[in-house]
């Protein structure tokens, strides 16, 4: 295992110019973000900007969302001190922000309920969504069942195969799951297909994007809806630890759980923020899904951000064992945080993530989503370099039941 020390120098006095007052009116986080979509979608995006602004300033909207997050989702999610794991690793005290305990088993529901409420406010009558791991698909199907909205979920055919339990759950809640057979049959292709649906249906359909990606205002809006994670966590740290943590680690696919966790801490420069991308099988192009670590800025799915592209601007194939991280792009705010040095980004290989699954399963009794296992693996390395009176929080973005069958297959075991 590589040690985190060499690649991630600990910042003694963090110098960062990252602002929380982003994006600007055109959706820019520094240079990143913006809107690169066909003209057909502009009116709906403008409408969404206006409706979202109105909702943000409407106490009734916030009250309705808070109530749902409390009674339907079960928030606040606990901040759990993993004492046995901390002792075993022998470094920092490890705390888990338990998004896996949310209704539907991941952080994705924080966003879908917010966007479903906006769908109703905009008087739209149909919802579409893309999904990789299926968690966002399930969270969309759930929100739509709750509000009585028809829901179509696009999902790469390869992901339909490797995340079958979630496909079944979506269908049980009345959503239509449409397998996408084009390209690499994964998350990127599901986003393409959802966007194409939206091109024709935009007048009556809302597209609930599942991460901090896409054209303005999605990256901002999804970050805001997910920021409940970081806000709660900040308060819980102050009450449980008596101070802010020293480091926070989250996995980064499109980047929504990480953005929601990090954003409320952006100004707390004593807190190290570490995002972990999917390192796949190695550093060679095509073997990983780590645009922040290995990519360069470019345009994909409506915004300007780090991306895996070839020298012609064609999106490169990527690989990850985890469907939710198997994506060539990343949210523009992460690109902004990378370039302003506020957040450190690293990547974690497939085999390291699989090892971390067992670590938490056997020592804490928690089955963790393969996406989240990437954060776990790197957090364990980082914690080892820290002292026992330091505190590290991991965003435990989702639970691992959905991965049981795929894990059995990978290990050649009976399911």
């Amino acid at each position, binding site marked *: 295992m590589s040690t985190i020390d060499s690649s991630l120098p600990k910042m003694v006095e963090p110098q960062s110019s990252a602002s929380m007052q982003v994006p600007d009116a055109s959706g820019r986080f520094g240079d990143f973000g913006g809107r690169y979509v066909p003209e*057909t979608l502009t009116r709906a995006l403008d409408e969404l900007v206006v409706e979202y602004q109105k909702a943000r300033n409407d106490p009734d909207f916030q009250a309705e969302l808070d109530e749902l997050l409390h009674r339907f989702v079960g928030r606040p999610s606990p901040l759990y001190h993993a004492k046995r794991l901390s002792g075993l690793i022998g470094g920092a005290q490890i705390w888990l922000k338990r998004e896996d305990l949310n209704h539907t088993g991941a952080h994705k529901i924080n966003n879908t309920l917010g966007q479903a409420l906006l769908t109703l406010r905009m008087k739209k009558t149909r919802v579409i969504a893309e999904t990789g791991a299926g968690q966002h698909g399930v969270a969309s199907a759930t929100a739509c069942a709750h509000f009585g909205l028809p829901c179509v979920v696009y999902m790469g055919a390869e992901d339909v195969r490797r995340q079958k339990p979630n496909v079944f759950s979506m269908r049980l809640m009345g959503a239509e799951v449409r397998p996408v057979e084009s390209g690499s049959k994964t998350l990127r292709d599901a986003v393409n297909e959802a966007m*194409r649906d939206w091109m*024709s249906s935009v*007048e009556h359909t809302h597209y609930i994007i599942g991460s901090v990606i896409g054209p303005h205002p999605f990256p901002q809006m999804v970050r805001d809806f997910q920021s409940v994670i970081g806000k709660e966590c900040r308060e819980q740290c102050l009450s449980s630890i008596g101070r802010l943590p020293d480091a926070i680690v989250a996995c980064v696919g499109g980047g929504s759980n990480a953005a929601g966790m990090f954003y409320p801490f952006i100004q707390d420069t004593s807190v190290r923020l570490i995002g972990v991308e999917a390192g796949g099988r190695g550093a060679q192009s095509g073997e990983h899904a780590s645009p922040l670590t290995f990519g360069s800025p470019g345009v994909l799915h409506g915004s300007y951000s780090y991306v895996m592209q070839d020298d012609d601007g064609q999106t490169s194939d990527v690989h990850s064992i985890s469907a939710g991280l198997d994506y060539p792009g990343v949210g523009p705010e992460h690109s902004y945080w990378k370039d302003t040095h506020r957040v450190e980004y690293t990547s974690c290989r497939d085999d390291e993530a699989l090892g971390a699954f067992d670590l938490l399963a056997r020592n804490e009794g928690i089955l963790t989503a393969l996406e989240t296992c990437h954060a776990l693996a790197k957090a364990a390395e980082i914690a080892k370099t820290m002292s026992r009176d330091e505190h590290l929080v991991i965003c435990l973005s989702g639970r691992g039941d959905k991965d049981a069958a795929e894990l059995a297959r990978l290990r050649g075991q009976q399911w």
Partner: protein
Amino acid sequence: MTAIDDLFAKLRASGKKAFMPFVTAGDPNMAFTSKVITRLQELGCSMAEVGFPYSDPIADGPVIQASYTRALGNKLKLQQIFDQIQTDKANWSMPLVAMVSYAIIHRQGPESFIMAAKQAGFCGAIVPDLLVEESPKMSSLCRKHDFNLIQLVTPTTPPDRALRIAEASSGFLYFVSVTGITGERTQLPEGLVDRVGWLKARTSLPICIGFGISTPEHVRLLAPVSDGLIVGSAIVRCLESASSSEEQALQNAGQLVSSLLAALET
């Protein structure tokens, strides 16, 4: 003045309309694309739109998507498009426009892209994912190099915005007929003729209509209100079989184009 500006000046002077086929570059290879362009010119087309294959085209329907996938599957590179067009451009008098995603332009750098495209023989570009708000830099570079940046208006564009887009566009304005992606339609939306007419009365820029046009009836309906018509998927579909028989594919496309051109004359 670009060749596109000249073309529309001439067409308008003689009361004629432009017919603009779309072909996918490199489907299945650039040598064939060149042959297609030559055939289109022989048939009497006014201009050709050359689609640059892109890995993630969200404005395209299944037919054009599949053509992009075939071209990229054969490892088509941007440089091959430019090289082949440059080699063969002496055979063509009609202007060529690039239909190209901003992801590709950004990777080259907008100015490098414009210079390379112009040198190859393109007179302008349609960038379907570059909104008017994001386009000022590209626009001024295009002006500097006397290269047209053709902007798009769609059925969801509010009227005041459509005027602003027309203002920012050069060469012509691309009026998208449908709320949706490219692909043949049996029926075009109600009110299309009126919407184009409304805009046409308010801009001196030529207006060309595209998306969904595939039959002589469409052509007869839309020609009177526009300066030109763009036909994509219907032609690309005829060319799908090129890898098994180039001659057959050329013949199929030729028949379709001839019937549409005939409708344009009537």
